[in-house]
Protein backbone atom coordinates (compact mmCIF):
# COMPACT_ATOMS: atom_id res chain seq x y z
CA UNK A 1 0.00 0.00 0.00
CA UNK A 2 1.20 3.51 -0.82
CA UNK A 3 1.11 6.18 1.85
CA UNK A 4 -1.47 8.87 1.15
CA UNK A 5 -0.21 11.19 3.87
CA UNK A 6 3.43 11.69 4.70
CA UNK A 7 4.29 13.80 7.73
CA UNK A 8 7.99 14.57 8.18
CA UNK A 9 9.58 16.31 11.16
CA UNK A 10 6.46 18.36 11.81
CA UNK A 11 6.80 20.97 14.53
CA UNK A 12 4.44 23.61 15.83
CA UNK A 13 5.28 26.33 18.28
CA UNK A 14 2.52 28.77 19.18
CA UNK A 15 3.15 32.46 19.64
CA UNK A 16 2.98 31.87 23.41
CA UNK A 17 6.08 29.67 23.06
CA UNK A 18 4.12 26.48 23.72
CA UNK A 19 5.43 23.59 21.67
CA UNK A 20 2.38 21.65 20.50
CA UNK A 21 4.28 19.33 18.17
CA UNK A 22 7.90 18.34 18.60
CA UNK A 23 8.99 16.78 15.35
CA UNK A 24 6.34 14.25 14.32
CA UNK A 25 6.95 11.68 11.57
CA UNK A 26 4.01 9.65 10.35
CA UNK A 27 2.89 7.85 7.21
CA UNK A 28 -0.77 7.02 6.65
CA UNK A 29 -1.59 4.18 4.24
CA UNK A 30 -4.30 4.58 1.66
CA UNK A 31 -7.52 2.87 2.68
CA UNK A 32 -6.74 2.32 6.35
CA UNK A 33 -8.45 3.60 9.46
CA UNK A 34 -5.83 5.25 11.60
CA UNK A 35 -6.54 6.29 15.16
CA UNK A 36 -4.52 9.00 16.82
CA UNK A 37 -4.82 8.22 20.49
CA UNK A 38 -3.79 10.64 23.18
CA UNK A 39 -4.97 12.62 26.19
CA UNK A 40 -6.41 16.12 25.88
CA UNK A 41 -3.79 18.64 24.84
CA UNK A 42 -1.49 16.00 23.33
CA UNK A 43 -1.32 17.75 19.94
CA UNK A 44 -3.89 15.67 18.04
CA UNK A 45 -6.00 18.59 16.90
CA UNK A 46 -2.95 20.74 16.16
CA UNK A 47 -1.61 18.07 13.84
CA UNK A 48 -4.92 17.71 12.01
CA UNK A 49 -5.29 21.49 11.77
CA UNK A 50 -1.90 21.81 10.12
CA UNK A 51 -2.54 19.02 7.63
CA UNK A 52 -5.90 20.56 6.70
CA UNK A 53 -4.62 24.13 6.36
CA UNK A 54 -6.22 25.68 9.45
CA UNK A 55 -2.95 26.17 11.34
CA UNK A 56 0.52 26.87 10.02
CA UNK A 57 3.42 24.52 10.69
CA UNK A 58 6.53 25.95 12.33
CA UNK A 59 8.79 23.37 10.72
CA UNK A 60 8.75 20.10 8.82
CA UNK A 61 6.64 19.10 5.86
CA UNK A 62 3.44 17.28 4.99
CA UNK A 63 2.27 15.84 1.70
CA UNK A 64 -1.25 14.66 0.98
CA UNK A 65 -1.75 12.44 -2.06
CA UNK A 66 1.67 13.62 -3.21
CA UNK A 67 0.87 17.34 -2.88
CA UNK A 68 2.79 19.52 -0.44
CA UNK A 69 0.28 21.22 1.90
CA UNK A 70 1.93 24.63 1.49
CA UNK A 71 3.35 24.74 -2.04
CA UNK A 72 0.46 22.86 -3.63
CA UNK A 73 -2.32 23.51 -1.14
CA UNK A 74 -5.06 23.17 -3.75
CA UNK A 75 -4.05 19.63 -4.62
CA UNK A 76 -3.60 18.67 -0.97
CA UNK A 77 -6.82 20.22 0.33
CA UNK A 78 -8.92 18.88 -2.54
CA UNK A 79 -8.07 15.39 -1.32
CA UNK A 80 -9.16 16.05 2.26
CA UNK A 81 -12.51 16.12 4.03
CA UNK A 82 -12.42 17.51 7.57
CA UNK A 83 -14.92 17.04 10.40
CA UNK A 84 -13.73 19.17 13.31
CA UNK A 85 -14.43 18.47 16.93
CA UNK A 86 -16.77 21.41 17.50
CA UNK A 87 -20.24 21.30 15.97
CA UNK A 88 -19.87 24.39 13.80
CA UNK A 89 -22.63 24.76 11.24
CA UNK A 90 -24.62 27.48 9.57
CA UNK A 91 -27.69 27.05 11.76
CA UNK A 92 -30.13 28.79 9.42
CA UNK A 93 -29.16 26.88 6.31
CA UNK A 94 -30.98 23.82 5.08
CA UNK A 95 -29.12 20.52 5.14
CA UNK A 96 -29.08 20.07 1.38
CA UNK A 97 -27.95 23.66 0.75
CA UNK A 98 -25.03 23.49 3.14
CA UNK A 99 -23.82 20.20 1.63
CA UNK A 100 -24.16 21.56 -1.91
CA UNK A 101 -22.27 24.68 -0.81
CA UNK A 102 -19.38 22.60 0.51
CA UNK A 103 -19.10 20.76 -2.78
CA UNK A 104 -18.97 24.07 -4.67
CA UNK A 105 -16.46 25.55 -2.23
CA UNK A 106 -14.12 22.68 -3.03
CA UNK A 107 -14.51 23.46 -6.72
CA UNK A 108 -16.49 20.38 -7.74
CA UNK A 109 -19.23 20.64 -10.37
CA UNK A 110 -22.74 20.27 -9.07
CA UNK A 111 -23.78 16.61 -8.78
CA UNK A 112 -27.20 16.13 -7.24
CA UNK A 113 -27.03 12.35 -7.52
CA UNK A 114 -23.80 12.19 -5.52
CA UNK A 115 -25.09 14.58 -2.84
CA UNK A 116 -28.23 12.45 -2.57
CA UNK A 117 -26.13 9.34 -2.11
CA UNK A 118 -24.07 10.95 0.65
CA UNK A 119 -27.20 12.16 2.44
CA UNK A 120 -28.86 8.75 2.11
CA UNK A 121 -25.77 6.96 3.40
CA UNK A 122 -25.81 9.20 6.45
CA UNK A 123 -29.61 8.82 6.97
CA UNK A 124 -30.04 12.54 6.34
CA UNK A 125 -32.07 12.37 3.14
CA UNK A 126 -35.41 12.70 4.96
CA UNK A 127 -34.09 15.75 6.79
CA UNK A 128 -32.61 17.44 3.73
CA UNK A 129 -35.08 20.33 3.77
CA UNK A 130 -34.73 20.91 7.52
CA UNK A 131 -32.76 23.84 8.83
CA UNK A 132 -29.69 22.65 10.68
CA UNK A 133 -30.80 24.26 13.92
CA UNK A 134 -33.78 21.89 13.96
CA UNK A 135 -31.54 18.83 14.12
CA UNK A 136 -30.24 16.95 17.16
CA UNK A 137 -26.55 16.98 18.05
CA UNK A 138 -25.95 13.55 16.52
CA UNK A 139 -27.65 14.63 13.30
CA UNK A 140 -25.59 17.83 13.17
CA UNK A 141 -22.44 15.73 13.41
CA UNK A 142 -23.74 13.72 10.44
CA UNK A 143 -24.34 16.94 8.51
CA UNK A 144 -20.72 17.88 9.12
CA UNK A 145 -19.61 14.48 7.86
CA UNK A 146 -21.83 14.93 4.79
CA UNK A 147 -20.20 18.32 4.12
CA UNK A 148 -16.75 16.75 4.45
CA UNK A 149 -17.69 13.95 2.03
CA UNK A 150 -19.48 16.23 -0.43
CA UNK A 151 -16.40 16.80 -2.57
CA UNK A 152 -15.39 13.13 -2.78
CA UNK A 153 -12.23 13.32 -0.66
CA UNK A 154 -9.69 10.50 -0.53
CA UNK A 155 -8.93 11.16 3.14
CA UNK A 156 -11.44 11.89 5.86
CA UNK A 157 -10.35 13.46 9.14
CA UNK A 158 -12.62 12.95 12.12
CA UNK A 159 -11.50 14.95 15.14
CA UNK A 160 -12.96 13.34 18.25
CA UNK A 161 -16.07 12.08 16.44
CA UNK A 162 -17.64 10.75 19.63
CA UNK A 163 -16.64 13.42 22.15
CA UNK A 164 -19.63 14.29 24.31
CA UNK A 165 -21.81 11.72 22.62
CA UNK A 166 -23.87 9.13 24.52
CA UNK A 167 -23.14 5.42 24.31
CA UNK A 168 -25.78 4.62 21.73
CA UNK A 169 -24.72 7.41 19.38
CA UNK A 170 -21.14 6.33 19.81
CA UNK A 171 -22.07 2.84 18.62
CA UNK A 172 -23.88 4.43 15.65
CA UNK A 173 -20.83 6.48 14.82
CA UNK A 174 -18.56 3.44 14.94
CA UNK A 175 -20.90 1.57 12.62
CA UNK A 176 -21.03 4.55 10.28
CA UNK A 177 -17.26 4.87 10.13
CA UNK A 178 -17.01 1.16 9.35
CA UNK A 179 -19.39 1.70 6.44
CA UNK A 180 -17.48 4.74 5.18
CA UNK A 181 -14.37 2.65 5.04
CA UNK A 182 -16.11 0.29 2.63
CA UNK A 183 -16.25 3.19 0.15
CA UNK A 184 -12.45 3.18 0.06
CA UNK A 185 -11.86 6.48 1.83
CA UNK A 186 -8.88 6.64 4.19
CA UNK A 187 -10.00 7.64 7.68
CA UNK A 188 -7.94 9.33 10.35
CA UNK A 189 -9.66 9.83 13.66
CA UNK A 190 -8.51 11.21 16.97
CA UNK A 191 -9.77 9.93 20.25
CA UNK A 192 -8.86 9.68 23.87
CA UNK A 193 -10.86 6.48 24.35
CA UNK A 194 -8.85 3.28 24.09
CA UNK A 195 -12.02 1.29 23.30
CA UNK A 196 -12.67 3.54 20.36
CA UNK A 197 -9.26 2.95 18.84
CA UNK A 198 -9.68 -0.73 19.60
CA UNK A 199 -13.10 -0.94 18.00
CA UNK A 200 -12.30 0.72 14.71
CA UNK A 201 -8.70 1.29 13.82
CA UNK A 202 -6.31 -0.80 11.76
CA UNK A 203 -3.36 1.06 13.20
CA UNK A 204 -3.01 3.26 16.22
CA UNK A 205 -0.59 6.10 16.89
CA UNK A 206 -0.10 7.13 20.49
CA UNK A 207 0.66 10.82 20.91
CA UNK A 208 1.32 12.75 24.08
CA UNK A 209 2.91 16.14 24.75
CA UNK A 210 3.52 16.74 21.07
CA UNK A 211 5.44 13.52 20.49
CA UNK A 212 4.31 10.45 18.65
CA UNK A 213 5.40 7.68 21.02
CA UNK A 214 4.64 4.78 18.79
CA UNK A 215 2.65 3.65 15.80
CA UNK A 216 1.53 0.05 15.73
CA UNK A 217 -0.95 -2.38 14.34
CA UNK A 218 -3.92 -2.27 16.64
CA UNK A 219 -3.68 -5.92 17.64
CA UNK A 220 -0.06 -5.52 18.72
CA UNK A 221 -0.86 -2.40 20.66
CA UNK A 222 -3.87 -3.88 22.37
CA UNK A 223 -1.65 -6.64 23.65
CA UNK A 224 0.46 -3.98 25.30
CA UNK A 225 -2.44 -1.91 26.50
CA UNK A 226 -4.84 -4.73 27.29
CA UNK A 227 -3.53 -5.47 30.79
CA UNK A 228 -5.85 -5.56 33.76
CA UNK A 229 -5.26 -5.94 37.44
CA UNK A 230 -7.42 -8.31 39.50
CA UNK A 231 -7.53 -7.48 43.18
CA UNK A 232 -8.72 -10.22 45.52
CA UNK A 233 -9.67 -9.05 48.99
CA UNK A 234 -9.03 -11.96 51.35
CA UNK A 235 -11.28 -13.07 54.18
CA UNK A 236 -8.26 -13.53 56.44
CA UNK A 237 -4.82 -11.99 55.91
CA UNK A 238 -1.93 -14.25 54.91
CA UNK A 239 1.80 -13.76 55.57
CA UNK A 240 3.34 -15.19 52.43
CA UNK A 241 2.18 -16.24 49.02
CA UNK A 242 1.82 -20.00 48.89
CA UNK A 243 4.12 -21.73 46.38
CA UNK A 244 1.04 -23.22 44.78
CA UNK A 245 0.24 -19.74 43.37
CA UNK A 246 3.70 -19.20 41.86
CA UNK A 247 2.60 -19.75 38.27
CA UNK A 248 0.28 -16.68 38.43
CA UNK A 249 3.01 -14.40 39.68
CA UNK A 250 0.66 -12.72 42.18
CA UNK A 251 1.73 -10.06 44.66
CA UNK A 252 0.63 -9.42 48.21
CA UNK A 253 -0.73 -6.02 49.31
CA UNK A 254 -2.45 -4.18 52.15
CA UNK A 255 -0.68 -6.05 54.97
CA UNK A 256 -1.54 -9.41 53.49
CA UNK A 257 -5.23 -8.59 53.06
CA UNK A 258 -5.13 -8.36 49.25
CA UNK A 259 -3.66 -10.33 46.38
CA UNK A 260 -3.08 -8.67 43.03
CA UNK A 261 -2.90 -10.53 39.76
CA UNK A 262 -2.06 -8.80 36.46
CA UNK A 263 -3.49 -10.49 33.40
CA UNK A 264 -3.81 -9.94 29.68
CA UNK A 265 -7.39 -9.42 28.56
CA UNK A 266 -6.47 -10.32 24.96
CA UNK A 267 -5.02 -13.72 25.90
CA UNK A 268 -6.74 -16.99 25.09
CA UNK A 269 -6.78 -17.90 28.80
CA UNK A 270 -6.63 -15.06 31.27
CA UNK A 271 -5.89 -17.38 34.16
CA UNK A 272 -8.54 -15.75 36.34
CA UNK A 273 -10.82 -18.75 36.83
CA UNK A 274 -7.95 -21.19 37.41
CA UNK A 275 -6.47 -18.83 40.00
CA UNK A 276 -9.77 -18.59 41.86
CA UNK A 277 -10.15 -22.37 41.68
CA UNK A 278 -6.66 -22.83 43.15
CA UNK A 279 -7.45 -20.40 45.95
CA UNK A 280 -10.53 -22.52 46.73
CA UNK A 281 -8.42 -25.68 46.73
CA UNK A 282 -5.97 -24.06 49.15
CA UNK A 283 -8.81 -23.02 51.43
CA UNK A 284 -8.02 -19.30 51.10
CA UNK A 285 -11.31 -17.48 51.40
CA UNK A 286 -12.02 -14.11 49.77
CA UNK A 287 -14.78 -11.57 50.28
CA UNK A 288 -14.44 -9.28 47.26
CA UNK A 289 -13.00 -9.15 43.78
CA UNK A 290 -12.43 -6.27 41.44
CA UNK A 291 -10.65 -5.72 38.17
CA UNK A 292 -9.34 -2.45 36.91
CA UNK A 293 -7.94 -1.35 33.59
CA UNK A 294 -4.93 0.89 33.72
CA UNK A 295 -5.97 4.44 32.87
CA UNK A 296 -4.78 5.98 29.64
CA UNK A 297 -2.38 8.13 31.64
CA UNK A 298 -0.90 5.03 33.35
CA UNK A 299 -0.48 3.45 29.96
CA UNK A 300 1.21 6.51 28.56
CA UNK A 301 3.56 6.59 31.50
CA UNK A 302 4.46 2.96 30.98
CA UNK A 303 4.85 3.49 27.23
CA UNK A 304 7.17 6.42 27.82
CA UNK A 305 9.27 4.26 30.12
CA UNK A 306 9.31 1.44 27.58
CA UNK A 307 10.42 3.82 24.85
CA UNK A 308 13.21 5.16 27.02
CA UNK A 309 14.35 1.69 28.00
CA UNK A 310 14.37 0.50 24.40
Amino acid at each position, binding site marked *: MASIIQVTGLTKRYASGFEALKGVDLAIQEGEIFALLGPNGAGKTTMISIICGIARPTGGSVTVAGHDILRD*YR*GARSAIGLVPQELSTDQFERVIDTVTFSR*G*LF*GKPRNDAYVEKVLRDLSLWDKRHNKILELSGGMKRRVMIAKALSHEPRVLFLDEPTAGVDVELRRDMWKLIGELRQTGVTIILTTHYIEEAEEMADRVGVITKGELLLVEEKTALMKKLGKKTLTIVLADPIQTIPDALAEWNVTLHADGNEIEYIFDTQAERTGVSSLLRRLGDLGIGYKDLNTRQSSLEDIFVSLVHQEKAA
Partner: protein
Amino acid sequence: MSLQNLRAIAAIYTFELHRFRRTLLTGLLVPVITTSLYFVVFGGAIGSRMTEIDGIPYAAFIVPGLIMMSMFTESIFNASFGIYMPKFTGTIYELLSAPVSATETIIAYVGAAATKSLIVGSIIFATAHLFVDVPVAHPVAMAAFMVLIAVSFCLFGFILGIWAQSFEQLQVIPLLLIMPMTFLGGAFYSVHMLAEPWRTITLFNPIVYLISGFRWTFFGQGDVAIEYSLLFVAGMLAVCLGVIGWMFRTGYRLKK
Protein backbone atom coordinates in the same frame (compact mmCIF):
# COMPACT_ATOMS: atom_id res chain seq x y z
CA MET B 1 -8.45 31.33 -13.22
CA SER B 2 -9.56 27.75 -13.64
CA LEU B 3 -13.09 26.41 -13.56
CA GLN B 4 -12.47 24.93 -10.12
CA ASN B 5 -11.68 28.37 -8.69
CA LEU B 6 -14.68 29.98 -10.35
CA ARG B 7 -16.94 27.35 -8.79
CA ALA B 8 -15.57 28.13 -5.34
CA ILE B 9 -16.12 31.87 -5.88
CA ALA B 10 -19.64 31.20 -7.11
CA ALA B 11 -20.37 29.01 -4.08
CA ILE B 12 -19.34 31.71 -1.58
CA TYR B 13 -20.97 34.52 -3.58
CA THR B 14 -24.35 32.77 -3.80
CA PHE B 15 -24.11 31.67 -0.16
CA GLU B 16 -23.64 35.30 0.89
CA LEU B 17 -26.45 36.59 -1.31
CA HIS B 18 -28.63 33.83 0.05
CA ARG B 19 -27.84 35.12 3.54
CA PHE B 20 -28.98 38.61 2.44
CA ARG B 21 -32.16 37.16 0.94
CA ARG B 22 -33.21 35.86 4.34
CA THR B 23 -33.48 39.47 5.50
CA LEU B 24 -34.72 40.80 2.19
CA LEU B 25 -37.69 42.74 3.51
CA THR B 26 -35.77 44.77 6.07
CA GLY B 27 -32.80 44.97 3.73
CA LEU B 28 -34.86 46.77 1.08
CA LEU B 29 -37.46 48.57 3.17
CA VAL B 30 -35.01 50.20 5.57
CA PRO B 31 -33.15 52.24 2.92
CA VAL B 32 -36.45 53.35 1.36
CA ILE B 33 -37.87 54.47 4.69
CA THR B 34 -34.63 56.08 5.86
CA THR B 35 -34.30 58.04 2.63
CA SER B 36 -37.90 59.18 2.86
CA LEU B 37 -37.36 60.34 6.43
CA TYR B 38 -34.28 62.32 5.44
CA PHE B 39 -36.27 64.02 2.69
CA VAL B 40 -39.14 64.85 5.00
CA VAL B 41 -36.79 66.33 7.62
CA PHE B 42 -33.93 67.82 5.60
CA GLY B 43 -35.55 68.28 2.21
CA GLY B 44 -39.02 69.37 3.31
CA ALA B 45 -38.80 70.97 6.73
CA ILE B 46 -35.32 72.47 6.68
CA GLY B 47 -34.60 72.61 2.97
CA SER B 48 -37.54 74.92 2.28
CA ARG B 49 -35.94 77.56 4.50
CA MET B 50 -32.53 77.17 2.93
CA THR B 51 -31.17 78.87 -0.11
CA GLU B 52 -29.60 76.91 -2.88
CA ILE B 53 -26.11 75.55 -2.31
CA ASP B 54 -23.75 76.30 -5.18
CA GLY B 55 -26.79 76.86 -7.36
CA ILE B 56 -28.38 73.50 -6.53
CA PRO B 57 -31.67 73.18 -4.60
CA TYR B 58 -30.94 71.81 -1.11
CA ALA B 59 -33.16 68.73 -1.48
CA ALA B 60 -31.27 67.67 -4.61
CA PHE B 61 -27.94 68.64 -3.07
CA ILE B 62 -28.20 66.07 -0.26
CA VAL B 63 -29.00 63.10 -2.58
CA PRO B 64 -25.36 62.13 -3.36
CA GLY B 65 -24.40 62.51 0.32
CA LEU B 66 -27.33 60.36 1.36
CA ILE B 67 -26.44 57.61 -1.11
CA MET B 68 -22.80 57.71 -0.04
CA MET B 69 -23.65 57.58 3.65
CA SER B 70 -25.87 54.54 3.24
CA MET B 71 -23.39 52.82 1.00
CA PHE B 72 -20.55 53.36 3.49
CA THR B 73 -22.60 51.83 6.28
CA GLU B 74 -24.05 48.99 4.22
CA SER B 75 -20.69 48.04 2.74
CA ILE B 76 -18.87 47.96 6.05
CA PHE B 77 -21.70 46.17 7.81
CA ASN B 78 -22.25 43.49 5.17
CA ALA B 79 -18.63 42.73 4.49
CA SER B 80 -17.55 42.72 8.14
CA PHE B 81 -20.42 40.43 9.20
CA GLY B 82 -19.83 38.17 6.23
CA ILE B 83 -16.38 37.19 7.47
CA TYR B 84 -16.90 37.78 11.20
CA MET B 85 -19.84 35.39 11.59
CA PRO B 86 -17.94 32.30 10.34
CA LYS B 87 -15.16 33.22 12.76
CA PHE B 88 -17.69 33.59 15.56
CA THR B 89 -19.61 30.36 14.87
CA GLY B 90 -16.49 28.37 13.94
CA THR B 91 -17.64 27.54 10.41
CA ILE B 92 -14.55 29.32 9.09
CA TYR B 93 -12.74 25.97 9.40
CA GLU B 94 -14.32 24.99 6.11
CA LEU B 95 -13.11 28.07 4.26
CA LEU B 96 -9.59 27.67 5.65
CA SER B 97 -9.43 24.00 4.72
CA ALA B 98 -10.86 24.54 1.23
CA PRO B 99 -8.63 24.69 -1.88
CA VAL B 100 -9.40 28.39 -2.26
CA SER B 101 -6.86 31.21 -2.52
CA ALA B 102 -6.96 34.51 -0.66
CA THR B 103 -7.78 36.36 -3.89
CA GLU B 104 -10.75 34.11 -4.60
CA THR B 105 -12.01 34.46 -1.04
CA ILE B 106 -11.87 38.26 -1.27
CA ILE B 107 -13.50 38.40 -4.71
CA ALA B 108 -16.37 36.26 -3.44
CA TYR B 109 -17.00 37.93 -0.07
CA VAL B 110 -16.33 41.50 -1.17
CA GLY B 111 -18.20 40.94 -4.43
CA ALA B 112 -21.31 39.73 -2.59
CA ALA B 113 -21.23 42.55 -0.04
CA ALA B 114 -20.62 45.15 -2.75
CA THR B 115 -23.53 43.77 -4.75
CA LYS B 116 -25.89 44.31 -1.87
CA SER B 117 -24.46 47.72 -1.20
CA LEU B 118 -25.00 48.72 -4.85
CA ILE B 119 -28.58 47.50 -4.70
CA VAL B 120 -29.20 49.64 -1.62
CA GLY B 121 -27.52 52.66 -3.27
CA SER B 122 -29.71 52.24 -6.35
CA ILE B 123 -32.86 51.96 -4.23
CA ILE B 124 -32.03 55.23 -2.49
CA PHE B 125 -31.33 56.88 -5.82
CA ALA B 126 -34.72 55.71 -7.12
CA THR B 127 -36.52 56.72 -3.93
CA ALA B 128 -34.99 60.20 -4.08
CA HIS B 129 -36.63 60.70 -7.47
CA LEU B 130 -40.01 60.42 -5.78
CA PHE B 131 -39.24 63.57 -3.81
CA VAL B 132 -37.05 65.73 -5.96
CA ASP B 133 -35.64 66.18 -9.46
CA VAL B 134 -32.05 64.97 -9.42
CA PRO B 135 -30.05 65.75 -12.54
CA VAL B 136 -27.12 63.47 -13.26
CA ALA B 137 -24.39 65.20 -15.26
CA HIS B 138 -22.13 62.15 -15.70
CA PRO B 139 -24.21 58.93 -15.46
CA VAL B 140 -21.38 56.56 -16.39
CA ALA B 141 -19.00 58.20 -13.95
CA MET B 142 -21.73 58.05 -11.29
CA ALA B 143 -22.20 54.30 -11.74
CA ALA B 144 -18.44 53.73 -11.79
CA PHE B 145 -18.01 55.82 -8.65
CA MET B 146 -20.68 53.81 -6.85
CA VAL B 147 -18.93 50.56 -7.76
CA LEU B 148 -15.55 51.89 -6.62
CA ILE B 149 -16.97 53.13 -3.32
CA ALA B 150 -18.85 49.87 -2.70
CA VAL B 151 -15.72 47.79 -3.37
CA SER B 152 -13.41 50.00 -1.26
CA PHE B 153 -15.69 50.09 1.75
CA CYS B 154 -16.44 46.37 1.48
CA LEU B 155 -12.69 45.72 1.51
CA PHE B 156 -12.47 47.95 4.56
CA GLY B 157 -15.36 46.06 6.18
CA PHE B 158 -13.70 42.76 5.36
CA ILE B 159 -10.54 43.90 7.18
CA LEU B 160 -12.65 45.00 10.11
CA GLY B 161 -14.38 41.61 10.23
CA ILE B 162 -11.06 39.78 10.33
CA TRP B 163 -9.63 42.15 12.92
CA ALA B 164 -12.65 42.20 15.26
CA GLN B 165 -12.67 39.74 18.13
CA SER B 166 -16.02 40.76 19.58
CA PHE B 167 -19.29 42.21 18.40
CA GLU B 168 -18.36 45.45 20.13
CA GLN B 169 -15.15 45.80 18.15
CA LEU B 170 -17.16 45.09 15.03
CA GLN B 171 -19.44 48.04 15.75
CA VAL B 172 -16.98 50.50 17.17
CA ILE B 173 -15.27 51.61 13.94
CA PRO B 174 -18.44 52.20 11.87
CA LEU B 175 -20.25 53.97 14.70
CA LEU B 176 -17.46 55.97 16.30
CA LEU B 177 -15.31 56.73 13.29
CA ILE B 178 -17.09 56.38 9.96
CA MET B 179 -20.43 57.87 10.96
CA PRO B 180 -19.06 61.09 12.49
CA MET B 181 -16.62 61.45 9.63
CA THR B 182 -19.48 61.11 7.15
CA PHE B 183 -21.66 63.69 8.91
CA LEU B 184 -18.70 66.05 9.13
CA GLY B 185 -17.61 65.14 5.61
CA GLY B 186 -20.18 67.26 3.85
CA ALA B 187 -22.96 64.74 3.35
CA PHE B 188 -25.54 67.43 4.10
CA TYR B 189 -23.63 70.65 3.48
CA SER B 190 -20.93 72.14 1.33
CA VAL B 191 -17.49 72.57 2.81
CA HIS B 192 -17.56 76.13 1.44
CA MET B 193 -20.29 76.95 3.96
CA LEU B 194 -17.85 76.43 6.86
CA ALA B 195 -15.81 79.24 8.39
CA GLU B 196 -12.08 78.99 8.89
CA PRO B 197 -10.37 77.18 10.56
CA TRP B 198 -13.04 74.45 10.24
CA ARG B 199 -12.90 74.56 6.50
CA THR B 200 -9.19 73.69 6.44
CA ILE B 201 -9.55 71.11 9.20
CA THR B 202 -12.37 69.43 7.29
CA LEU B 203 -10.08 68.92 4.34
CA PHE B 204 -8.12 66.39 6.42
CA ASN B 205 -11.22 64.17 6.46
CA PRO B 206 -10.89 61.70 3.58
CA ILE B 207 -14.67 61.26 3.44
CA VAL B 208 -14.95 64.85 2.16
CA TYR B 209 -13.16 63.85 -1.02
CA LEU B 210 -15.34 60.81 -1.56
CA ILE B 211 -18.63 62.63 -1.12
CA SER B 212 -17.40 65.58 -3.16
CA GLY B 213 -16.37 63.30 -6.00
CA PHE B 214 -19.73 61.60 -6.05
CA ARG B 215 -21.49 64.96 -6.00
CA TRP B 216 -19.39 66.00 -8.99
CA THR B 217 -20.86 63.12 -11.03
CA PHE B 218 -24.34 64.57 -10.34
CA PHE B 219 -23.83 68.32 -10.67
CA GLY B 220 -20.49 68.65 -12.45
CA GLN B 221 -19.02 70.41 -9.42
CA GLY B 222 -17.85 69.46 -5.94
CA ASP B 223 -16.09 70.85 -2.89
CA VAL B 224 -12.74 69.71 -4.22
CA ALA B 225 -11.46 68.90 -7.70
CA ILE B 226 -12.59 65.52 -9.03
CA GLU B 227 -8.94 64.47 -9.53
CA TYR B 228 -8.37 64.63 -5.78
CA SER B 229 -11.47 62.54 -5.18
CA LEU B 230 -10.29 59.86 -7.58
CA LEU B 231 -6.89 59.90 -5.91
CA PHE B 232 -8.48 59.25 -2.53
CA VAL B 233 -10.61 56.37 -3.85
CA ALA B 234 -7.56 54.83 -5.50
CA GLY B 235 -5.54 55.34 -2.32
CA MET B 236 -8.19 53.69 -0.18
CA LEU B 237 -8.42 50.71 -2.55
CA ALA B 238 -4.65 50.30 -2.54
CA VAL B 239 -4.33 50.51 1.25
CA CYS B 240 -7.17 48.03 1.84
CA LEU B 241 -5.81 45.56 -0.70
CA GLY B 242 -2.37 45.86 0.87
CA VAL B 243 -3.68 45.22 4.38
CA ILE B 244 -5.79 42.25 3.27
CA GLY B 245 -2.86 40.79 1.35
CA TRP B 246 -0.74 41.05 4.48
CA MET B 247 -3.49 39.48 6.61
CA PHE B 248 -3.76 36.43 4.38
CA ARG B 249 -0.01 36.06 3.96
CA THR B 250 0.59 36.04 7.70
CA GLY B 251 -2.67 34.32 8.60
CA TYR B 252 -3.41 37.28 10.90
CA ARG B 253 -6.33 36.39 13.20
CA LEU B 254 -7.40 33.70 10.74
CA LYS B 255 -4.89 30.93 11.25
CA LYS B 256 -3.17 29.80 14.39
